[in-house]
């Protein structure tokens, strides 16, 4: 085993660190978070440096690197500012469906603009009122000539109203007994007629990106927009979730690390009762807990990312990682606020939005109970 980053990984990490030092500005971050505006210039800068889509093949402007390197970037970005980090990393939300399952033509058409920062993507999976259950979709794609026509509604789609293209999970076979034959995945260009978006408004976190409920009304797409093969949608979406959950874990680790460092700075300078907060024994115990959780969450996240790049990541480890990292981020950011006292509740001290973004990740792509079901299914099999 080897728990050290290699030279190029360290360089990537340092490059991102320098980037955030130079480009992330506290007040700008607070403003954008509050106004729900996107950091377009910062994205452009990140793209120039190749931080976006680093796991894409070189011909699509990537660096042919793995989820591991993508995680290093996500961690460092979120460490400096949780919301800016989320905004940069989730601009291409869903693009991995094209990367992993798409045709060369699809990759060429859709990955390149994502890596350039010229196009947002949006994974449109969830549907209103059926929680996080993807086994049956109300959204349907019906054969229409050699193409397809899509009808249905997807809820809370990140980048819903700014996406250059959507990854839409549709039911293509109502007769299929099991989910793994029932669904298919499609690319839908954002400007295709029949798409209407209803903005969700402000959310708990990730507020520099918009979210919308997206309705597809007789939206026609060509046969070339089917990702992979018909009926592969369910296995594709689950495979995508494995990768996404590890990436979310890396962001959670970065968020925890960032809030932890802010809290450390604060307790070293803040005095109460004539001594520094850092010198109270209860602070010691809090700090020890925070450090421990960050340590094992990061180590596990790296392992999961490495395992994915080796082609061996299963849903169980992915969900264990997401659950563990999100829990750690919640506990650490919670204590960071508590250590700040009243200031922790104040927007300008930043830790409160780290806490909100941590909870966003905790709830995004399946909350704890969903993760536990996924983990248990890999261990004891289908629930009767």
């Amino acid at each position: 085993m080897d728990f050290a980053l290699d030279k190029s990984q360290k360089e990537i990490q340092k490059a991102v660190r320098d980037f955030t030092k130079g480009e992330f500005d506290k007040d700008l971050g607070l403003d954008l978070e509050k106004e729900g505006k996107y950091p377009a210039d910062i994205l452009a800068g990140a793209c120039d440096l190749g931080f976006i889509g680093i796991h894409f093949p070189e011909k699509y402007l990537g660096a042919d690197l793995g989820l591991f390197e993508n995680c290093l970037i996500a961690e460092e970005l979120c460490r400096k500012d949780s919301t800016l980090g989320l905004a940069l990393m989730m601009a291409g939300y869903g693009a991995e469906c094209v990367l992993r399952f798409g045709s060369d033509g699809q990759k060429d058409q859709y990955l390149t603009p994502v890596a350039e920062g010229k196009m947002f993507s949006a994974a449109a999976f969830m549907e209103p009122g059926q929680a996080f259950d993807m086994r049956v979709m109300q959204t349907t794609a019906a054969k229409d000539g050699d193409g397809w026509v899509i009808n249905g509604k997807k809820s809370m789609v990140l980048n819903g109203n700014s996406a250059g293209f959507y990854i839409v999970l549709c039911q293509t076979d109502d007769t299929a007994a099991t989910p793994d034959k029932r669904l298919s995945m499609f690319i839908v260009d954002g400007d295709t007629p029949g798409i209407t978006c209803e903005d969700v408004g402000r959310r708990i976190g990730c507020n520099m990106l918009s979210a919308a409920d997206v309705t597809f009304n007789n939206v026609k797409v060509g046969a070339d927009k089917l990702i992979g093969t018909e009926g592969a949608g369910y296995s594709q979406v689950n495979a995508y979730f494995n990768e996404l959950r590890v990436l979310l874990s890396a962001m959670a680790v970065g968020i925890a690390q960032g809030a932890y460092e802010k809290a450390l700075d604060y307790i070293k300078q803040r005095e109460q009762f004539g001594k520094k907060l850092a010198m109270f024994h209860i602070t010691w115990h809090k700090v020890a807990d925070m450090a421990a959780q960050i340590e094992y969450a990061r180590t596990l996240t790296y392992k999961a990312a490495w395992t994915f790049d080796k082609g061996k990541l299963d849903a169980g480890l992915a969900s264990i990682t997401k659950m563990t990292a999100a829990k750690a981020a919640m506990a650490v950011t919670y204590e960071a606020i508590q250590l700040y006292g009243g200031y922790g509740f104040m927007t300008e001290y930043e830790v409160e939005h780290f806490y909100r973004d941590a909870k966003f990740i905790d709830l995004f792509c399946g909350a704890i109970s969903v993760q536990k079901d996924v983990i248990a299914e890999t261990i004891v099999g289908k629930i009767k």
Partner: protein
Amino acid sequence: MDILNYTEAHQQFRMRLREFCQKEIIPNVDQWEADHIVPKSAWKRMGEEGFLCTNAPAEYGGHGLDFLYSVIVAEELARTNHTGLAAPLHSDIVVPYIVSYGSEEIKKKYIPGCTTGDIITAVAMTESDAGSDVAAMTTTAEEDGDMVVINGSKTFITNGINADLVVVAAKDPNAENPHQAVSLYIVEDGTPGFTRGRHLEKMGFHSQDTAELFFTNCRIPRENILGQKNMGFIMLMEKLQQERLICAIMAQFAVELMLEAAILYCQTTKDTTGKPMSKYQGMNFQLVEMMTEAHIGRVFMEKLVADHMEGLSVVKETCMAKYWHTDLTQKISNQVMDLIGEEATAERSMILRGWRDLRVLPIFAGTNEIMKMVVGKMSGL
């Protein structure tokens, strides 16, 4: 056994208030949250309907009702899922300073207005470098003839913008013992040298006008002192039991409201096979555990209210309750968010506001760490 005995009169009062909240508060809450303040007119309406200072003595214009009415106000306001119209703070935390320590003149002068809603009150204790450590207070009050001159600044002041009357804690710079140097003064809105600072942006409590207050050679008449000079600490201590009890009560009701929402969600939300979330044993047990903790919290809170109403000293127990109940709000509100999942990440899901607002409970009115320090001391550890 019923620990608390609500009479018919209590129930009628509750129903009147509930109806009032339905008609005049809940429809406006979203606007108030956006405005980051509640209009004074809303306070006035609360006063007109008799929902303010229910516990203040009748002879000074209060309603002279027992503390259960205060509990009812806290509960019904909690159900409006907003924090701006902070009647419990006004009626049961600030005004009691005037009731207990104000001179005859002061009581006659202010309590009627506090009851009608013409006077909104705030208490100004916390300073940027004196949070938990009240002794580190730097705001000074120096006597100058018949006047007292106040200098300094306060922060995190609830009702800071709306307040017509502020109870200010200030230090006598000439006193040597910092624990016998604090006095409480009444400063009216518009007093020269009293200015409001920034309206502070917060994670939650958006409809709540939390602000900084500045006092620059702010001159007030000597008579505006509450109680004896330099006895501020004792007065603050004496009032802590009720203040912390109010926090525990608010926390308890918030927990119950959150839980109701979670149960409703889990019973009505079904998976694609039509099975409701509440029938999934994993969720089912979580709901049961939350119901149990909420039930236990209710019993404990009611016992404390009963003891408090009997005039018993339960300072230690209220400190326990302040930290335990407000910690419970964190545990439950996070678990409720988990059960609802991604849908709970949108502000349109009202649960999110509760989650944001509640985060401050373990911090304000003395952080939960301070509560534990007090309990530890009182227990001779």
